[in-house]
């Protein structure tokens, strides 16, 4: 049985309070973000059911939203998720090579997770950083002006911080 901590439940209440009374369905997207963060980086059916009960929604109302938006992961992902932009402006600055290079370094294809559960590689459509291409999203932030050297550094950095936290 999953459950938000007291602190997170307070955060949920604060989110609901942003919307007029009776319109708490509006809180669904932000609360799903919070749930994904809290419960392993993805939305399991159990997590979605929990969010539905929390907001007083039918489970189908949560499922249809969770499956519509690309930021919600519907299967488990690695500790670090690399989402590399592959849209036109990034291509002009070499994003194809970067995607290929990351895949080679990690030994996985886009959509896959490394066996150690550390990295997931995904391709993404335009992330609104065309002037700083090639780029990728990692967690809450962007990694921009990517080069092979920079990719190496990022991967090393992730490995180091994962080793420290374990």
């Amino acid at each position, binding site marked *: 049985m999953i459950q938000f901590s007291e602190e997170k439940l307070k955060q949920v209440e604060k989110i609901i309070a*942003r919307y*007029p009374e009776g*319109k708490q*369905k*509006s*809180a*669904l*997207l*932000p609360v*799903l*973000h919070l749930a994904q963060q809290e419960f392993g980086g993805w939305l399991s059916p159990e997590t979605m059911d929990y969010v539905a009960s929390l907001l007083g*929604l039918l489970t189908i*109302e949560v499922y*249809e*939203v969770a499956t*519509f*938006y*690309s*930021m*919600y992961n519907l299967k488990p992902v690695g500790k670090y998720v690399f989402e590399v932009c*592959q*849209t*036109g*402006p990034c*291509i*002009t*600055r070499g994003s194809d090579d970067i995607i290929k290079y990351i895949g080679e370094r990690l030994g996985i294809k886009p959509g896959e997770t490394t066996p150690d559960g550390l990295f997931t590689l995904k391709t993404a*459509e*335009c*992330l*609104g*950083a*065309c*002037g*700083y*291409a090639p780029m990728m*999203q990692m*967690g*809450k*932030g962007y990694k921009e002006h990517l080069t092979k050297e920079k990719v190496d550094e990022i991967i090393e950095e992730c490995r180091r911080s994962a080793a420290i936290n374990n």
Partner: protein
Amino acid sequence: MGRKLLLDKVGIVGIRSYDVYRKNGGYSSVEKVLKTMSPDDVTNEVKKSGLRGRGGAGFPTGMKWGFLAKPEGVPRYLVCNADESEPGTFKDRYLMEHIPHLLIEGLIVSSYAVGSNRTYIYIRGEFGWIVDILEQAIAEAKNNGWLGKNILGSGFDCEVYVHPGAGAYICGEETALLESLEGKRGNPRIKPPFPAVKGLYGCPTVVNNVETLSTVVPIINMGGDEYAKYGTGKSTGTKLISACGNINKPGVYEIEMNISVEEFIYSDEYCGGIANGKRLKACVPGGSSVPVLPAYLLLKTAKGETRMMTYESLSDGGFQTGSMLGSGGFIVYDEDQCIVRNTYSFSRFYRHESCGQCSPCREGTFWMEKILWNLEHGKGKMKDIDLLWSVQGNIEGNTICPLGDAAAWPVAAAIRHFRDEFEWHVTHPEEAQRRNYGLAGYAEPLKAGV
């Protein structure tokens, strides 16, 4: 140096913080409107300014506010569209990251004008760190009495909330955005009714872009008439252009709408010319949805006039020989770029982002991507080019929202202007895998590096 109205203070150290922003004249427009102007006065100033929506459509902002229904006892909403997702566009992000209080100030003034006591910023979910920046700015504004109840003793109440999306280009369409804000899938609504009558929670709603709402601040400070003296013709004021692709200086530039496309690309004040000493092949001047133009139609119109960075000049010649200013997402291609590959990438994007509600868009984008993949990978046939032309033509105008048009236009323009490059991919399938078609006849008529 061109005159600036939005980014003039961006270079000031610490401008992201409230204190520095306030010391440099910030929030004076809120004082002005709450103390000396009625909501209608504010709308009138915006009408006089000639401001056109900066999200892409270019609809006059004052007129949009004027359409708002005002039934007694029904709340009205202002929603800021910060779902910046159009490929090539990254200007709103720049504003929010560097000078967030400008948007908050613009939101308060605009909320007063339209009578919104509860205003939302719908921001794309990927901009997670900008959500933090905005929430910090809102908290600072509130602590200093610019938000909350009875602001400056005027009797006007206003709260601003940030609402993150979750990854869906379609939510930049205003009715899809409202659906998403209500906690649903981002399926665009059938119009009418327009949001001005039935918007968020069924109440009258205005949806405006980040840059549009930020521009309200200088308009109020200087007056609508004064603002209208900037720019030319029906393109008044300044516009943020996000420039990317094969140029020396990608980035966000504020231009006064009176400079030429040539100056924008080649002058050191802006893009600084084509990168690596290459030559200009083509350009998408207003975000991925607008028609691509070959160099010879980009710098001069079909009539031989200098092409200017204005709404009117960029659309001169219609879609036959012109394009659109759109969102200001300016994507430049050098001689090494492949038009077929780029068009394929855009089609993949629109297929990915189609909400699936309307068959022409859901199926059409799927087939366009498939056909373009074949052409790009040397598996295309000559008749595929005509098939592609027919598919795009059957999407355009047959969908609830403009995403269908946005998916069709880049394909149509690519075939219209670069048909020989598509044909070369069919006739030279192996060579097309190894090298690029190059410049062919599309090179700029001017010598490189002007």
